[in-house]
């Protein structure tokens, strides 16, 4: 009798959005926070099994992320070092936040956008193309044009998946996975040897794109522009977060998106065009991801290598961001900060090998991500809390 009854929560044919909405009501913040802690505990056990100290390992990862900058007692050279690390963390957070919005917005309409990676790459590719051509154009105008093209490209790319869903019912998970790989190979072709956007200037051993013009670099407001300081792309991402929140809560589009997410049949019956909503929701999602590509290229990457395209995971980690953040604006912000810090804190150059091998730590990050998605996605803790609730009520009575 104490067994979790998911059915009480979600009924017979749950959409992703209903499930999430009910999870909010049932667990609120407690679910994701406890789940994250649980994932870290499991990660700690793995560290322990390896023979290292989990506490000093997590401490080193924390310091590697630069979050110790927030402590006023960190002073002098340590503080300058922490600031540099935190700038890196926030650069990753920027891209994760935008891509997290891309996954989250589609989620709210009941669609699972696995294609954040592809939309991000389309944004990167277009940014490199436009940013490296049209040299001599007015700087700010050039930046706006590049960002607009990347955003539009991402929107069209994702919109294609939405269109296929709306017209022929092709499952968005399958179409977005295919679009991801098409973007990967088209990007590798463009920037690779003999490709149309291959840089002939660089002498590096890996094929890479030409660098964007210096005049389209986004201004750095914290740290040194030479050492990849934090650029204004961070504020662009925060502004998008506000747009996301307001669109969903205050506009007719947001209402339709949420309604379709809850119950497409009822929305259709109420006179909404479900097909149109799917296309628009995917296009808006793709716009966020495409923008992320532009912000990364213009902010700190400046040129994109074939290797970057094939190993980039931003769009996939963004799934963890959206799932953990429960598609809520504040949740996505916190989750993107968490994963940005984890990614940067476990990077080879940031983690002290004497404490824990960074090669192991970066894989630990992947395991923690997997556990978080698994636990939050299945609402394991929510179910557990839910099953505890009546008993507590009975005990009180």
């Amino acid at each position, binding site marked *: 009798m104490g067994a979790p009854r998911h059915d009480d929560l979600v009924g017979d044919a749950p959409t992703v959005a209903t499930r999430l909405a009910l999870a909010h009501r049932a667990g609120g913040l407690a679910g994701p926070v406890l789940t994250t802690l649980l994932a870290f505990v499991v990660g700690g056990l793995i560290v322990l099994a390896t023979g290292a100290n989990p506490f000093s390992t997590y401490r080193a990862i924390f310091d590697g992320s630069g979050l110790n900058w927030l402590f006023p007692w960190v002073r002098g050279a340590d503080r300058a070092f922490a600031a540099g690390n935190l700038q890196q963390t926030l650069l990753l957070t920027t891209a994760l936040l935008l891509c997290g919005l891309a996954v989250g917005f589609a989620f709210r309409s009941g669609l699972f956008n696995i294609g954040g990676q592809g939309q991000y790459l389309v944004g990167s590719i277009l940014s490199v193309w436009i940013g490296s051509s049209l040299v001599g154009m007015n700087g700010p105008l050039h930046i706006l044009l590049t960002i607009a093209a990347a955003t539009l490209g991402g929107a069209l790319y994702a919109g294609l998946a939405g269109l296929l869903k709306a017209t*022929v019912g092709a499952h968005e998970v399958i179409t977005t996975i295919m679009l991801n790989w098409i973007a990967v190979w088209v990007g590798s072709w463009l920037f690779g040897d003999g490709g149309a956007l291959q840089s002939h200037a660089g002498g590096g051993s890996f094929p890479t794109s030409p660098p964007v013009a210096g005049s389209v670099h986004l201004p750095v407001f914290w740290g040194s522009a030479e050492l990849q300081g934090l650029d204004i792309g961070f504020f662009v991402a925060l502004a998008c977060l506000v747009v996301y929140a307001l669109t969903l809560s205050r506009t007719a589009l947001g209402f339709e998106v949420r309604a379709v997410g809850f119950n497409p049949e009822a929305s259709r019956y109420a006179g909404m065009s479900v097909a149109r909503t799917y296309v628009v929701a995917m296009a808006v999602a793709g716009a966020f991801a495409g923008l992320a590509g532009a912000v990364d290229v213009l902010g700190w990457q400046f040129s994109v290598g074939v290797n970057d395209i094939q190993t980039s995971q931003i769009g996939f980690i963004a799934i963890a961001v959206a799932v953990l953040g429960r598609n809520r604006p504040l949740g996505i912000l916190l989750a993107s900060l968490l994963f940005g810090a984890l990614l940067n804190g476990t990077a080879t150059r940031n983690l002290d090998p004497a404490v824990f091998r960074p090669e192991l730590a970066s894989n630990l990050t992947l395991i923690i991500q997997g556990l978080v998605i698994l636990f939050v996605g299945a609402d394991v803790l929510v179910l557990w809390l839910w099953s505890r609730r009546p008993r507590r009520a009975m005990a009180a009575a």
Partner: protein
Amino acid sequence: MSTWAERLDGPVWSRMRDARTVAVAGIVLGIVAALVALPPVTARSPLYPVLFGIAAAVLGLSAALRGARRPGWGAVAAGLLGITLGILATRSSTGNLNLVFTASLIASMFVFSTPLVFGAIAGTFSERSGVVNIGLEGMMLMGAFWGVYGADKGGSWMVGLLVAMLAGGLLALVHAYFAIHLRADQIVGGTAVNFLALGITGYFFFQLYHGQDVPVGVSTIPDMKLPGLEHVHFLNQAFGDLNLMVWLSFALVIVSWLVLFKTAIGLRIRACGEHPRAADTVGINVYAIRYGCVVLSGVLAALGGAYLSIGFGGGAFTDNMTAGRGFIALAAMIFGNWRPFGAFGAALLFGFSTALAYRLPAYSSSAATLFQALPYVLTLIAVAGVIGRTSPPAADGKPYRKQ
């Protein structure tokens, strides 16, 4: 259109069969259109591929108008593709053609298609029982690492395969528990499983091998020399020296077709994927079937992964070794319309395109890179319904709750 139909006598099914035969003939002609320009025929005039291609398109069109839409339009596409490829081939030098299109191209098609066949059949079992499995990539990766680990420490490739199957099955069990028992979203679960596999294999690879490569000389899955083919040059090059796993993949396709479509257990599996409530009503244990199929799916996918590391990989492992093959396998399953032979055909097509991509640098290395996108584009076209419609099992991805 209707006059065409009216002129034909006989019951509907015979007319359909007739149109289908015409369409299949069209597809064959489309393939011939490309083949005439390639070795050993190597026609040098573009006239031949164009003629064969047009004939294929005409047959396809007539078949499509008479109701066999999917194969009909397929024949039209084959004809147009045949013309394009044929003309391209007549314009390239014979030396290059002889370099690229050899019998060993067929052997290397099997090399690249084998992991896809295992993955696609794995996915077919899982999804036929009603559980979406986008964790194939992760399950293959588990097989790749634990396969090489088992072969290294156990001293034999057979131990490697067993360890791989165990690891893949365990990861699939996690997916099954969350998808079936907790009724979690199966796509979220599959995504998580992929992350877990990437982390687990990377972690243990570094931990167990101290950041080094797997030592050279690990026992690998043997190749099967076919006796009696030495004198038949073409067949010997294509089939004479294939890996054991390639032959196993052929057998797997036949066996899984028999199991899924000719046995009672197969009927039960498909019932669970189409209408679990009805299956439950007649006494089928839906949960047991689904658990079994998902775990089997993990075991088979892991075999495909093990082939990568201790089969044609020669006993090596690298981080993220599968590099998206699990997703191509997923694409092959969809392209093959959730049927073993369909999946096999799609896997062969995708394997062929990869094999060709490895040889295309003879012409242009950049074109070879772009060619790698072909499987994904084809699958996108297939799910978009341009050439007929793919239809997943009705209850695919829907959690089932007993009443």
